[in-house]
């Protein structure tokens, strides 16, 4: 066992790791940050998506020790400083972009990466960017709306169409 240290949501955090410990297990089991989820074994579903040094990364496919010293942001780090929902999080609530909530942390992290790269994406750009994030509840309809709204674009209200 080694002790691995990284900056998680702005704070230096350490936990013991084995060589095979995945970043997602370091976060969930080592730090008890259970907002990052595991939905598959093959890096397809995106429920585990976090940001490592500003880039989106599937935490089920990254070894914790590779992230020694890295800056990691998880869903727990996405709220405003006063604890209120961040802009993307608020749009997901406003546009009913989540149901069971299990894929949601990955969706929010993916949306943040998308909007950083492409601040005003088209509907098709949003849909294609989410290729690596699977949702089984929403049919993606309201996720797409939420991300469009978070980018400041005009979107029809929910339940008013």
């Amino acid at each position, binding site marked *: 066992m080694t002790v691995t240290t990284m900056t998680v949501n702005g704070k230096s955090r350490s936990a013991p790791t084995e060589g095979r410990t995945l970043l997602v297990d370091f976060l969930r089991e080592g730090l008890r*940050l259970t*907002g990052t989820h595991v939905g*598959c074994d093959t890096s397809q579903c995106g429920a585990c998506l976090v940001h490592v040094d500003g880039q989106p990364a599937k935490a089920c496919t990254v070894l914790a020790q590779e992230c020694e010293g890295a800056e990691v942001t998880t869903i727990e780090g996405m709220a405003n400083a006063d604890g209120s929902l961040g802009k993307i999080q608020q749009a997901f609530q406003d546009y*009913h972009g989540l149901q*069971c909530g299990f894929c949601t942390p990955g969706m929010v992290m993916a949306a943040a990466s998308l909007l950083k790269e492409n601040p005003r994406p088209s509907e098709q750009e949003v849909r294609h960017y989410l290729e690596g994030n699977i949702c089984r509840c929403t049919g993606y309809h309201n996720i797409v709306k939420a991300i469009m709204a978070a980018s400041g674009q005009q979107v029809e209200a929910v339940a008013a169409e």
Partner: protein
Amino acid sequence: MPKDMGIGASSKRREDVRFLTGKGRYTDDINVAGQAHVVFCRSDVAHGRIEGIDTSAAEGMPGVIRVFTGADFEGVGSIPCGWQVTDKHGEPMQEPAHPVLAQGKVRHVGDPYAAVVAETKAQARDAAEAVEASITELPAVINMKDALAEGATKVHDDLRDNLCYDWGFVEENKDAVAKAFDEAAHVTSLELVNNRLVANPMEPRVAVGDYASHDDSSTLYTTSQNPHVIRLLMGAFVLGIPEHKLRVVAPDVGGGFGTKIFHYAEEAFCTFAAKQLEMPVKWTSTRGEAFMSDAHGRDHVTKIELALDAENNFTALRTETYANMGAYLSTFAPSVPTWLHGTLMAGNYKTPLVYVNVKAVFTNTVPVDAYRGAGRPEATFQLERVVDKAARELGVDPVALRRQNFVTEFPYQTPVAVEYDTGDYNGTMDVLEKMIDRDGFAARRKESEARGKLRGLGINSYIEACGIAPSNLVGQLGARAGLYESATVRVNATGGLVVMTGSHSHGQGHETSFAQVVADMIGIPEDQVEIVHGDTARVPMGMGTYGSRSLAVGGSAMVRATEKIIAKAKKIAAHLMEADEGDVELKDGKFSVAGTDKDVAWGDVTLAAYVPHNYPLEDIEPGLEETAFYDPNNFTYPAGAYACEVEVDPETGKVDVVAFAAADDFGNVVNPMIVEGQVHGGLAQGIGQALLENCAYDEDGQLLSASYMDYAMPRAFDFPMFQVDSQSSQTPCTHNPLGVKGCGEAGAIGSPPSVVNAVVDALQSGGFTDVYHIDMPLTPDRVWGAMNGSATGQGAAQPAANADDTTQARSVGDGTTATH
């Protein structure tokens, strides 16, 4: 104007805040101090005899606490089945034993035969690799018709054969139906497959068993849609733990779609092992395990025939279905192809005579049970496909043919036992036709054709039955449970209240919508109402969430309990205002006396209930807490009309859904935003079934689609924005207090035939006039094949020249079909 609170308002979901900030508490987030971890050893063959299991090497590995095999479960009960179907001869179905860990034989890929408990998950996984099982592979039966052949290998050696039951409904109508077919002016028939699916909630299943030796009590944390049902099934039938010594907690659950209704062996294992070892035992499914251990859905092969008279009135309907049960009977499996399917075969139509035959078959595959819609998607798909084919054969408009045959007078007694209380099928069809600009379709088709694409429009109706169900009725039909729901409303001294509901929310937003109902009834802010669910220690009783029953049944129980609260509160208010109880009114959280200026606030009454200084103690007890059990007296019947527009690329066979519209009648709607979200999700699963998803076995019973690399989960780019409307044509349910019908499954029920109707329409328009049907999923390979001479879904009636070489062949062997 949309309302801003209470019933009818699109209140934002309170549960979202925790899910959006990573504070959800799912079962895998629960860790009990001192817990051990279990990893199951699962069969990698479809059928095999267990000659011996050598656990000695595994037991010597670091951190290993104990290795269990089937022998450790002798004397422990079998995983029970909750529904006994009686066959057409009046005999009970064949019901095999289902041990927690396999005994004697393994019967499907994924069947667990040993379990390694170790201090860490990694140690358990390492040691599971060291368990040496000697398993002699046996011939496997995968194809249902092979399984029923004379002399076929038996999945269960102690059963007569692989036929679970042969069900006829309504058996007494069989001859009259045959006569109607003899006299028909036109008969349309179709053979089709309802493809095997995997529910795939994004949260894999998890179980944590715990045992407290100081009071001999057990606790199970599990990913369940119905913790009380698990407590009963596991406690009473498997482990022999009385309900007062067993607590089952289903906290935040990351989607269910039916597959988390059932009691699973892993739940029983963790509870059992925790007591044996006197330490908590946790299991977290991998996605790969989920594919081979979560109950699958659908997997029917059907021949359907529709008889019409010379005026195109439907005169009779006849079906023959083979329904795959898999290797064991999952909790509600026998009810799905029978009572949840045969009773819906009249559809929206006044067909006077219906006969449904279902043969349920054991095979060496994962058990099959309810998946979103459960029986009703299978009924709707075959019916709406055969009606579409009839319209095409007769050269009439498919909408006009449907309208001509719609039931228009209610209540309507169908020939398949159920009575529709209310509905307006022309009403939803009118809404749909406005939504889709049907008149503009010809121009849109022309525009597509100019780009080299074929465009098709598919329209259909659907009806389903929700709000399961009257207990006395389902008891007669073989259910081994009552299907009421309960709610307890506990008002606190300062006026806030807690509703403890037996319904379970795993994405449906009950914490918001249920609070809207109670807040509206009393006239207090929604944030004064807390909804508690998912814990047998906090909620007195519950039958759980499935079959779109939560609001219709659970909500009704909550309304009844709240009515009792209001009745008692009025007595207290009458005392405080020195008025007659009959003159007291409650509005906007205030009690008043009609015709006077006397009033008393809700909070003053609730305070008096708990500080009864000025209180009618001689007449009523202090406190303000009431429980109600609600047992419905009928199912509810949501119905609607759906339309799909597709573009097909004739070069590749790729289908793009370019528009999808859904007009639904769910009766009254509590939260339109949530209802729309439920429809969106259902549509995605139905379109996914039609175009993408297929659970495939090869002829040896190897599960070919056991990961997200092999099973095509729908992605965001597979869909357009949906058009949905559940507000414009509403016929409130006549027999529950909220007038609600249920909205959770409609999208998945109504949409598969829309897609297939649309693709057939597109191909017909391109000159492929022999294409009447293509089996789901309509992959590019299958659609291209249909355009290039493969069998096109006429099954045995019109086999392809070389059926085995095509993806249309209804047998396994090429790995692209479901198990038939």
